[in-house]
């Protein structure tokens, strides 16, 4: 997936594996000449933390804040966190230096973490997409396997958002997810 971060900056992200990791990771590359020059790509530094090494990270989505100039990547994955190792959760990282590096300080405040509004249970997030609004809020739309099904697995579509406080350098809390559909059985992930 590609996003334009105010001409001439571009950001690309994808899921893949490399010789450094045995599991799928989130890679990214940047270009500061609107795609003309070569891309900056660090294969040795995908979006992962030490305790995430053995877990798959998939389905990245890029976005750009016109308010702050930050680049964002959200994705689905597992961590060694006790509440999330067995079930997928949604993570996000941002870059305040045009993609030179990404900050992972949502590592303990991911969507579905213990204490998150709803969705910290034993169920999976299976698809997601994100965007930044003009106020700097990071919005996520996602599929979540609900716990209230009686006829098998049911995926429902929800939205939630979080805001990064530039002054305090902290994230807020995820808003309580808003359901957009019920029993969307036909949706493929």
């Amino acid at each position: 997936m590609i996003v334009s971060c105010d001409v001439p900056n571009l950001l690309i992200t994808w899921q893949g594996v490399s010789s450094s990791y045995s599991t799928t990771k989130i890679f990214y590359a940047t270009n500061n000449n609107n795609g003309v020059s070569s891309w900056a790509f660090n294969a040795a530094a995908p979006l992962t933390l030490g305790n995430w090494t053995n877990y798959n990270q998939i389905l990245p989505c890029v976005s750009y804040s016109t308010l702050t100039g930050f680049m964002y990547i959200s994705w689905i994955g597992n961590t060694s966190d006790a509440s999330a190792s067995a079930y997928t959760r949604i993570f996000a990282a941002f870059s305040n230096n045009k993609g030179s590096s990404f900050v992972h300080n949502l590592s303990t405040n991911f969507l579905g973490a213990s204490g998150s509004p709803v969705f910290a249970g034993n169920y999976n997030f299976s698809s997601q997409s994100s965007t930044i609004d003009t106020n700097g809020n990071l919005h996520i739309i996602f599929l979540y396997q609900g716990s209230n099904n009686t006829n098998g697995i049911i995926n429902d579509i929800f939205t939630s958002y979080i805001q990064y406080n530039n002054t305090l350098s902290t994230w807020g809390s995820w808003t309580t997810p808003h359901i957009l559909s019920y029993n969307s059985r036909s949706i493929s992930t």
Partner: protein
Amino acid sequence: MNTIQLPSHPYFFTEKITKFEWNITNRIMTNFSTFTNQNQINPVICIYNNIYYMVWQGISDAVATTKIYFSLSINSGQTWSTPTRVSDILSSYAEKSPHMIIDSSGIIHIVFASISSYDVNFSQIFYVRSTNLGSTFSATGTTGGISSLIGYG
């Protein structure tokens, strides 16, 4: 037509969404006989200056391997231009998962994955751009050691 753009997101939504209900009569590929009976998947659409631009992953009668195709519509999707390939990667290499944006200067940016015909588990990420609204695209070259090859995964 009134359009709404999600901030910093390449997709557009339109109030005329009901006109995009896909059926056999307005299925885009029925316009092109060489595509009619082949699988076409993963479309991405952008709107820039009231022109619709679309890329997708598909197969034509002429090229049996999945490739990335491009088409545009100047009449709100009623008709579409003859699809063109966006890359010159070897025909034996399958291409998949395209994504496209059009930046504020009107340049089209497309990324996609190309899968080796020698090892289906090995794919690479490619980038092409068009500075003339899709008339031509930058060369990707053949797989291996090219400037537009971004990374692997």
